[in-house]
């Protein structure tokens, strides 16, 4: 045989089977593109780690990369297995016509090689192009410095080539094993054997329920703040496993139960849908689970980053009580007085009028490690006078009484390791300046005499008691220029009285946060767009491949008396259920993830749960809209395939 016979034959086969190979190659290219883009960002250590919060970003990106990598392996191997099933007849024919198994292997090797080369090269090129393009585009939309360079990443390329080379090698291997085992006549019948009714895999369904339930449980109950990221990762993996198991095994168990209910099943609208779905789920479960997981990622990504960005003002107000403020550390009771008088001096000299004076003196007592999360608890003590002034209240306390802000049960407060104990007069909502509020782990304790409590506690548990922090500042409400003026005079006034207080401006704090959260927002939008594209791609792939498989079924139904209208209705019902199931599941995932995400956001200095809830809801709605549009567009190509055949019959 001529040397280039097999390469040519392989090329011819790909062209002949372009109807099945084109969507496969397109899907591969998209997957590779996505992986490369994510990889090039996740390995861009220089760009990211230089920025504030960059280390955490890198960790999140790498987690994303692992998820996308797993997703790629499952998706491509799964797609390949259906591809080879459809081609078995053709391979059997070659076998009968005189190509030995070794020749077939050679032919299939070249086919896989071509597919791999086309997909990987096109995927990498498009990935580089797209990342540049999206980067430039987003840079125009948002107006803050973005920490990522988007240069061509050599590590990204190497990792991508290695992973996908391995995936294609595995695909080839599994195809060779299948063809090698089978006799020609079995190959000839191969595509018919494929239509077995799916079995209910109870074990898998149970594992699915178990892992999903446990993942949800973790997300609901994790307390220790330091373990949040680790536990979140753990819960994510469990939920992913649960999603795959339930989509594959659980869906079939449910559909079979529906089929057993004769009154329900033998109705026109349920009859064809339920049985059709049984087979669709067998083939599509993994694809749908992929859609579900990608959708969840999009939703989490966008809703968190958007709410962080929108919530900047709330955040900055809670961590920076006054517009212009001075901070001193130390228990000296004269600090407050001195800072206030410096402020008065500066105000007189500048001629500025303040809206409000803010005085906030406090100290913290904490147990356990915040980073390790082993039973972390923290109490912040502040005097009643400051509390009343800040919150605009007029509360009173007797000796031995406290007010607690935060969620607290019980009517007395005791601090472990000390003989401190007080009667809880009242439990109030969160304190305005709760910069690091964690439900059930942080409390603000309002006391009558702060100095007394401080000396009592620091004498008994000096290691757990933090420095006394004194903050005095003004709320001006006259813009940045006035802030600068006041800060200038304040600096001079402090010098005169010889107080080394630290001056800070809220606007400066704010711009720092803008650049941090802006970077995160950019990343969120970028990844969200990327995953949305991947979702759209899978939906398109499913619609096209299924169209060809379903058309015969609908032809037969028309012959035995189903009208075109009924066919359309059945199709619509089926694909609606099939494609909106993942979205619904994604929304449930989000709902369960809400609590743990809120807690992780707490660490990033946000305590506005309502804002996050709103952002999540808006993101879900927006995404559902995009999803519907994608679905409607791709459904049209499905209808076209099914209907042209049906009408021709």
């Amino acid at each position: 045989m001529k040397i280039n016979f097999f390469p040519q034959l392989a090329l011819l086969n790909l062209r002949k089977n372009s109807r099945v190979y084109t969507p496969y190659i397109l899907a591969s290219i998209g997957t590779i593109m996505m992986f490369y883009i994510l990889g090039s960002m996740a390995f861009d250590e220089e760009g990211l780690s230089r920025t504030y919060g960059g280390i955490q970003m890198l960790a999140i990106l790498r987690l994303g990369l692992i998820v996308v990598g797993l997703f790629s392996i499952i998706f491509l191997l799964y797609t390949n297995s259906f591809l080879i099933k459809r081609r078995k007849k053709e391979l059997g024919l070659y076998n009968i016509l005189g190509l030995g198994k070794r020749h077939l292997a050679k032919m299939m090797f070249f086919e896989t090689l071509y597919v791999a080369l086309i997909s990987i090269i096109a995927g990498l090129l498009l990935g580089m192009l797209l990342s540049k393009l999206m980067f430039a585009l987003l840079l125009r939309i948002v107006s803050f410095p973005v920490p990522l360079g988007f240069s061509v990443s050599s590590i990204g390329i190497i990792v991508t080539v290695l992973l996908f080379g391995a995936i294609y090698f595995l695909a080839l291997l599994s195809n060779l094993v299948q063809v090698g085992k089978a006799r020609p006549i079995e190959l000839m019948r191969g595509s018919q054997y494929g239509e077995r009714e799916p079995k209910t895999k109870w074990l898998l369904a149970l594992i699915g329920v178990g892992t999903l339930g446990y993942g949800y449980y973790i997300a609901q109950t994790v307390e220790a703040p330091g373990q949040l990221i680790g536990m979140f990762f753990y819960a994510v993996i469990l939920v992913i496993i649960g999603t795959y198991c339930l989509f594959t095994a659980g869906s079939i168990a449910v559909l079979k139960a529906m089929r057993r209910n004769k009154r329900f099943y033998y109705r026109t609208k349920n009859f064809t849908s339920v049985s059709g779905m049984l087979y669709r789920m067998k083939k599509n479960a993994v694809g749908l689970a992929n859609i579900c997981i990608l959708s969840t990622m999009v939703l989490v990504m966008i809703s968190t980053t958007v709410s962080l960005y929108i919530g900047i003002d709330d955040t900055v107000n809670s961590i920076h009580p006054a517009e212009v403020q001075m901070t001193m550390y130390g228990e000296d009771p004269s600090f407050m007085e001195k800072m206030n008088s410096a402020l008065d001096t500066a105000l007189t000299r500048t001629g500025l009028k303040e809206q409000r004076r803010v005085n906030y003196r406090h100290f913290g007592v904490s147990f356990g490690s915040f980073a390790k999360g082993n039973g972390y608890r923290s109490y912040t003590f502040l005097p009643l006078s400051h509390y009343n002034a800040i919150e605009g209240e007029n509360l009173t306390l007797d000796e031995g009484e406290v007010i607690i802000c935060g969620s607290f049960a019980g009517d007395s407060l005791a601090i472990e390791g000390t003989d401190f104990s007080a009667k809880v007069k009242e439990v109030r909502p969160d304190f305005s300046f709760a910069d690091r509020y964690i439900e059930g782990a942080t409390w603000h304790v309002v006391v009558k005499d702060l100095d007394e409590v401080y000396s009592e506690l620091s004498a008994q548990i000096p290691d757990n008691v933090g420095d006394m922090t004194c903050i005095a500042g003004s709320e001006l409400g006259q813009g940045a220029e006035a802030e600068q003026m006041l800060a200038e005079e304040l600096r001079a006034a402090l010098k005169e009285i010889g107080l080394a207080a630290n001056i800070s401006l809220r606007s400066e704090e704010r711009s720092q946060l803008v650049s941090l959260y802006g970077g995160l927002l950019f990343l969120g939008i970028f990844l969200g767009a990327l995953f949305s594209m991947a979702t759209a791609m899978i939906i398109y792939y499913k619609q096209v491949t299924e169209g060809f498989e379903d058309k015969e079924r609908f032809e037969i139904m028309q012959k035995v008396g189903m009208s075109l209208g009924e066919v359309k209705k059945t199709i619509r019902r089926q694909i609606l259920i099939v494609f909106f199931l993942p979205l619904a599941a994604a929304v449930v995932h989000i709902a369960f993830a809400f609590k743990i995400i809120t807690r992780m956001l707490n660490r990033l200095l946000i305590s506005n749960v309502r804002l996050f809830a709103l952002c999540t809801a808006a993101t879900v709605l927006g995404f559902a809209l995009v999803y519907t549009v994608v679905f409607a567009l791709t459904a049209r190509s499905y209808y076209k395939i099914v209907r042209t055949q049906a009408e021709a019959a």
Partner: protein
Amino acid sequence: MTLLEVRNLKKVYTTRFGGAKVQALANVSFSVEEGEYVAIMGESGSGKTTLLNIIASLDKPTSGEVLLRGVNIHGIKESQLAEFRRDNLGFVFQDFNLLDTFSVRDNIFLPLVLAGRPYREMEARLKPLAEKLEISDILNKFPYEISGGQKQRTAVARALITKPQIVLADEPTGALDSKSTDQLLRMFSEINREGQTILMVTHSLKAASHAGRVLFIKDGEVYHQIYRGAMSNEAMYQKISDTLTALTTRGYQA
């Protein structure tokens, strides 16, 4: 009483770009009485399947009409056509056309489910039918688990369960072995004896020899017909064979 009347059917296929025209049916007229068992014979390409598709309202004729109990079926609105087909016609195809996603039972129920009949009635109709067609014990199996003969008997059950006016069979023995063929033809005769009108298209001599009347189609026209009268299957077989030979040789001479 005349059940089906076919008048001057003509069908011309035009290729997509309006190029060559192919005439599948030139001028076909015949009628079928109630309770008759009619076979239509002809070689491949003689227009048999086109004719059956038009009678089945799956295809529209270029001209001419098909009347079922005096009603022109091509005058029925597109939206009601499916219902008409479901209620009046039963189909048996060469390649069975069973849905692999349904069990044998559900395949048979399909037309009744589409008609919105209650489950109780479906079961009641299925029981005697399944016994007659000897498929009672495979009702829960799936098409890929049963033999060709069993598949075709399932298809016959599906055609009969709606109690159609007429059963249209397109080469029903085409994909069966000889044993299954004999069994199926025996059942067709039995069903016919019970009063079911059957119109079958075939090029199998054996299949045609079971019919009460055989029409021969050639070049899109009804060329000849044979009535069984009191003939046995064997005599009918011989007569059809002779006719076919005569037709073919005459064709070659011409």
